[in-house]
């Protein structure tokens, strides 16, 4: 177990290193535009040169990268070119907003999709199963920006129940959170439903379930006590891996509803070429992705006694 964690930590560090080098090299392809973006279009060539020089842009790329890496190791994320403040000051509040969004999505999506998946997989082929399966295919087929358009046409334009943007300019307002959460839940829940259904349907054909039914236990007891325990192992890991998808979805939803979160920040930073902010965002993305994968593996081994770490 310890060895497994160490291996994963090594993998995480290596992935972060590779990603940060790639990001750095990608941004290196367009060095001249940075000064233009920071100083504005009317800066003279001389002003740009001075700015580039004082910020160390004429040093070799490798040296600048290593300088950034050394600072990162001491916990210093550098300074944002766009916001002209330390990266952390921009990054952490935005990340917190996205965590709120993501937590709300998971809090609704997980119970909903597990329940629907179990109901569908409990009795394969029944009308309830068919309906749930088709609904889940339909909702996963609608991309986030399209369902955002549908939902805002309905609830904002036609019914006028909800605000159309979620900038939270007047402080935190849960009503502004409803549409972004709904869009993400709609797009993501179908996949979890399908996985839960497949897992449940598989368990229901196992001999021990037949034995339990044949010895006269009520169907409800068999499902709740015997089947669920095994059927929920696979969906659980799927849900953890879903966090990765959520991170992509968040970018679209946040920019559609003007929600001030991590996804919108990443997009802004990338469009601006704000190198340290991009690097910080990329590192957060890698940590979240690898972290949830590791957690999924550990949870899987913990829940399923048949699997042990080698």
């Amino acid at each position, binding site marked *: 177990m310890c060895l497994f964690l160490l291996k994963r930590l090594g993998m995480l560090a290596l992935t972060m290193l590779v990603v940060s080098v790639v990001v750095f090299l990608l941004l290196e392809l367009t060095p001249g535009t940075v000064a233009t973006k920071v100083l504005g279009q009317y800066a003279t060539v001389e002003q740009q040169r001075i700015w580039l020089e004082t910020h160390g842009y004429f040093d070799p790329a490798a040296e600048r990268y290593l300088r950034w890496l050394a600072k990162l190791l001491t916990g210093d994320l550098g300074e944002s070119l766009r916001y002209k403040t330390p990266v952390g000051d921009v990054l952490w509040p935005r990340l917190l907003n996205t965590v709120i969004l993501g937590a709300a999505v998971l809090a609704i999506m997980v119970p909903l999709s597990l329940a629907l998946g179990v109901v569908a997989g409990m009795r394969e082929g029944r009308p309830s199963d068919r309906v749930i399966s088709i609904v889940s295919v339909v909702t996963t087929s609608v991309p986030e920006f399209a369902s955002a*358009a549908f939902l805002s046409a309905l609830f904002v334009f036609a019914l006028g129940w909800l605000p159309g943007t979620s900038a939270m300019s007047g402080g935190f307002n849960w009503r502004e959170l409803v549409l972004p959460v709904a869009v993400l839940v709609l797009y993501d829940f179908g996949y979890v439903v399908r996985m839960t259904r497949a897992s449940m349907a598989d368990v229901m054909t196992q001999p021990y379930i037949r034995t339990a039914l044949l010895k006269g236990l009520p169907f409800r007891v068999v499902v709740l006590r015997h089947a669920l325990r095994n059927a929920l192992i696979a969906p659980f890991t799927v849900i953890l891996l879903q966090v990765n998808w959520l991170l992509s979805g968040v970018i679209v939803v946040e920019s559609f509803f003007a929600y001030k979160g991590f996804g919108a920040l990443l997009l802004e930073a990338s469009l601006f070429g704000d190198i340290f902010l991009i690097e910080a965002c990329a590192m957060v993305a890698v940590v979240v992705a690898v972290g949830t994968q590791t957690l999924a593996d550990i949870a899987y081994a913990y829940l399923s006694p048949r699997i042990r770490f080698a």
Partner: protein
Amino acid sequence: MRRFLQTFVALRHRPVAVVGLALVLFWFAAALLAPVLAPFDPLTPLKPFAKPGAAHGDALLLLGADTVGRDILSRVLFGARAVLLYAIGATLLAYAVGVAAGLAAGYYRGRVDTVLSFGANVVLSFPVLVLYILILTTVGASGLNILLAVTVASAPGIMRVVRGLTLELREREFVAAAKLRGDGAFYIMLVEILPNVRGPLLVDACLRFGYVIITIGVLGFLGLGLPPPVPDWGSMIKEARQVALAFPHMTLAPAVAISSLVLGFNLLADGLRDLDGRG
């Protein structure tokens, strides 16, 4: 090719798959016949902010016009061209790369496999959209770059599938026989192994195709899609986003278009998978 056709004939008993196939064929037809079907030129401004059904000359703007006054119906039809063309191109390229890497990793194993699998893991451990944004904001958004970005992000997944299948297939008798015959590695991979991974890949391809369409739409929506005058569904929604609360028809038409096309591919994939399961 005959087996391919037989597969589709066998699908006719599955109503869900038939609906899927119909949706896909509908959009392919729309894309091919766009110049004939479209009532107006998709790029000419006619009547800004026109509501659906507004008259323009003798013809009607059936789905209304956008902020610049371009006919939305014509733009949606021509948009199908752009979307399908780039989705097909990107998917084919991703498959070419993914299949080649998967065959090599699965067949040679050892160091080739380690290097390729590590590369794939790095890409896969990263939220895909973040990757697209990073690539496209630096190299710039253009048709070719979209193809490349989709390939980079999709090929690792395809590679994993092919690698898994190849690892198993390379131990079979017919591969051993080919080796004894003295066939080269390339011949064995392409002629002996590749045909056997076609079945599982067909389902994967349908799902992935739907996903690539979503991706191209998302990129258009984020402003990283095809350059502006080309009508593509994602960027239509982006352009109308600001006024969507007053003129929802501008975002609804492209949203319905992309959703129905992706749904078509997903339903088709479902039908194909069921067939596969039954043998």
